[in-house]
């Protein structure tokens, strides 16, 4: 719970006086709080620097080191102060947290050291205040990244850390992905790189015209036609190597589907496919045109270098992530081109022998002018055309030159921002989940408190100490407050599961509806308060007789909240026609720790001798139940009827 709330608890409890006249049941007694010695000043000595604060200040956060009894371990009786052998500068921030409720992160300290101090004093990093939260996270992230990088580098460096039992496939994949791991992998890496280079160069050289050795017919041919066999052999060799590599990768890939869909494998396929298509295609004149087009795709082999070059990969990724900016640039350019082309076309329309034959023809002029290339193959001749042409070139400078730096900076900003936004979103979810958890923690704390049966006004005793978890005074008082509210309204807090089951039971027209109305039966002022909600004891009667499937889940829930049953008065109505067992556990013993055990409700023979036994599924759950039984026999002799059956899940 938040800090200063502890300050307001006394007032909230006092305000509970307002419920008194409405309460239909007697309110539970207040927990016995040790006589507080009033407020005193504590001295905390951290490595020689003395800090003094009120005890109340530290008590605000009972689940930290300083707020709980854990600080007693550091108490030095001789000097009467609490001594901590820690950094006094950091302690200042910790202590301020108690005072103000906000944890600030020191700017000049190492974030790791700060974290360690927080861990020591029992403060969770989520407590860092909003003002310092972003910076704290950023610095922590930086640190973590740096550490991760170091770790990765270490891991990538070492080869023989492969598990011994790894298959050939795994080893092959690892060799492909990290060529530095073994010599063979490295050799393979360089060989493929070499062949990619060879293939690309061959493609290029193929088209250079080279002179034949013989002068007669002195015509120039591209080398590819001159030495077709040599080039063919080289191509074949490269393609064979690439095919082999691709097949090996396919074999070694841990997830073949994913591998087939990855960009690199597509590039590989596109690189080698034209060769095979060319092989199987007949040497027709018709299709050779198409065949020639296919050869163009051979240039994609150059992209295979991206496996060898980290920079290329990063570039590809950045282009992908910057796509929207590029798209916008393209769009605005297109708009400008269309506008100017139209204008130029109509301006030059009158001239004869003009190049501006149509608007699309004018596109070329506009593009060349706007990018300030100015080839000069298309020139306006009219005055209007020249005027608009100059406007076009001037605006071209703006249109082109402006977005490019914006894109560059945009890309850099968006890249970093995306990283941060995603992380923040993920952390936000976690943060919200934690807040919800903490919130449900307080509600669960109360429900669990009820389970432990401490609500029963027992006379204390050692059992109490055994069963009951040690709760702080604040928790005790808060739970007392919630209990008062329950008594006032004659309803109890439950959790979602029980509630939904109760809803289901109500819809079946069970006796739950009757039980709530019992509260309102005017049986007379005197007995009103005592007879109110007697059915509370019968609350779980309904479900146990249900099908085993729901019993297994339901009974778990109900038995969780079984504890704290009061001794019910004699049941007022005997309309237990559906043989629902009367589950008033008339246990006089105080042990209420039935929490985990699944015990079917025994019918106390005294009260309802004629009610049938619950048809509980027998068997299992022995372990938990037996331990509980053992516990229950610890204390005063219990009235455990011999009809206790252990129902299984």
């Amino acid at each position: 719970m938040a800090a200063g709330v502890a300050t307001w608890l006394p007032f909230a409890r006092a305000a509970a006086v307002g419920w008194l006249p409405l309460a239909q049941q007697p309110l539970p007694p207040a927990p016995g709080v040790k006589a507080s010695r009033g407020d005193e000043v504590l001295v905390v000595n951290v490595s020689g620097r003395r800090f003094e604060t009120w005890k109340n200040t530290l008590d605000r956060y009972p689940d930290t080191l300083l707020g709980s009894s854990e600080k007693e371990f550091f108490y030095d009786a001789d000097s009467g102060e609490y001594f901590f052998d820690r950094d006094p500068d950091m302690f200042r921030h910790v202590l301020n947290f108690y005072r103000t409720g906000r944890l600030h992160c020191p700017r000049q300290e190492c974030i790791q050291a700060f974290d360690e101090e927080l861990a020591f004093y029992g403060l969770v990093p989520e407590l860092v205040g909003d003002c310092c939260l972003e910076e704290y996270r950023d610095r922590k992230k930086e640190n973590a990244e740096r550490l991760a990088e170091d770790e990765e580098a270490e891991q990538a460096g070492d080869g023989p850390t492969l598990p011994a039992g790894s298959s050939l496939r795994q080893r092959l994949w690892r060799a492909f992905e990290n060529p530095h791991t073994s010599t063979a992998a490295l050799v393979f890496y360089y060989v493929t790189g070499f062949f990619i280079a060879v293939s690309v160069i061959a493609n290029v050289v193929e088209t250079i015209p080279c002179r034949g050795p013989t002068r007669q017919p002195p015509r120039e041919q591209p080398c590819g036609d001159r030495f077709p066999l040599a080039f063919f052999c080289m191509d074949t060799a490269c393609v064979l190597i690439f095919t082999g590599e691709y097949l090996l990768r396919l074999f070694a890939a841990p997830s073949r589907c994913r591998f087939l869909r990855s960009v690199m494998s597509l590039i590989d396929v596109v690189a080698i496919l034209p060769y095979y298509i060319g092989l199987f295609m007949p040497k027709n004149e018709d299709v050779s045109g198409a065949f020639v087009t296919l050869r163009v795709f051979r240039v994609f082999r150059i992209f295979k270098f991206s496996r060898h070059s980290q920079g290329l990969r990063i570039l590809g990724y950045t282009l992908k992530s910057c796509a929207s900016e590029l798209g916008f640039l393209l769009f605005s350019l297109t708009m400008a081109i269309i506008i100017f082309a139209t204008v130029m076309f109509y301006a030059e329309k009158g001239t004869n022998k003009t190049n501006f034959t149509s608007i699309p023809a004018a596109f070329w002029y506009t593009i060349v002018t706007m990018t300030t290339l100015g080839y000069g193959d298309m020139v306006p001749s009219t005055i209007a055309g020249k005027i608009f042409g100059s406007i076009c070139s001037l605006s071209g400078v703006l249109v082109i030159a402006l977005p490019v730096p914006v894109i560059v900076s945009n890309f850099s900003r968006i890249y970093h921002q995306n990283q941060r936004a995603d992380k923040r979103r993920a952390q936000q979810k976690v943060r919200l989940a934690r807040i919800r958890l903490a919130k449900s923690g307080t509600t669960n704390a109360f429900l669990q408190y009820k389970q432990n049966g401490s609500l029963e006004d027992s006379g204390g005793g050692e059992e109490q100490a055994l069963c009951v978890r040690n709760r702080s005074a604040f928790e005790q008082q808060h739970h007392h407050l919630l209990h008062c509210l329950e008594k006032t309204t004659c309803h109890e807090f439950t959790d979602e599961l029980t509630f939904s089951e109760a809803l289901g039971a109500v819809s079946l027209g069970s006796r739950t509806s009757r039980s709530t109305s019992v509260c309102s039966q005017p049986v007379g002022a005197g007995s009103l308060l005592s007879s109110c909600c007697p059915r509370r004891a019968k609350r779980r009667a309904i479900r146990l007789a249900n099908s085993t499937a729901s019993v297994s889940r339901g009974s778990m829930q109900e038995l969780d909240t079984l504890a704290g049953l009061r001794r019910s008065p004699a049941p007022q109505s005997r309309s237990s026609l559906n043989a629902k067992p009367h589950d008033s556990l008339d246990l006089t013993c105080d042990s209420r720790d039935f929490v985990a055990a699944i015990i079917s409700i025994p019918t106390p023979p005294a009260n309802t001798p004629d009610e049938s036994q619950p048809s509980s599924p027998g068997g299992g759950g022995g372990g938990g139940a037996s331990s509980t039984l053992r516990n229950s026999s610890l204390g005063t002799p219990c009235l455990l009827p011999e009809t206790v059956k252990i129902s299984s899940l």
Partner: protein
Amino acid sequence: MTMVCHRPEGLEQLEAQTNFTKRELQVLYRGFKNECPSGVVNEETFKQIYAQFFPHGDASMYAHYLFHAFDTTQTGSVKFEDFVTALSILLRGTVHEKLRWTFNLYDINKDGYINKEEMMDIVKAIYDMMGKYTYPVLKEDTPRQHVDIFFQKMDKNKDGIVTLDEFLESCQEDDNIMRSLQLFQNVM
């Protein structure tokens, strides 16, 4: 937004007016000042604080009524004096004073009478604090039934209105209430 800063009257004066000792007043004020450095609590803050104690349900309506019970001068903000005066009544006051304070709480429009509508509002607000997940399941007319019981008990002359005297009388007749009033003695 100006920071309204309110300083309470002197310690001696407050000690004379309430049933707290000086030390207790000091502790109370330190806590109060820490939470509300400006020296006053407004309704929103009050609702938030109260809601933290009842995470299951919605405590805003009840906190609203409570706030107006604390804010005796109806200024819209609770100062430390109001806070401490009410606490003094609730924790250290006589039975009469406590019951009178409770009557004042129920009497929403402060006209000196509690009618069924006011009681309905209060009871509904209390049931709202329980939240959705209760056992037994909250029915629509549970608050109404509760109010009917209350009126049957309190309204002596059956005129549909509970006056202060009727209220005091009925409560003093009821042992449970009398016993429960002693519950919160040692809250401080």
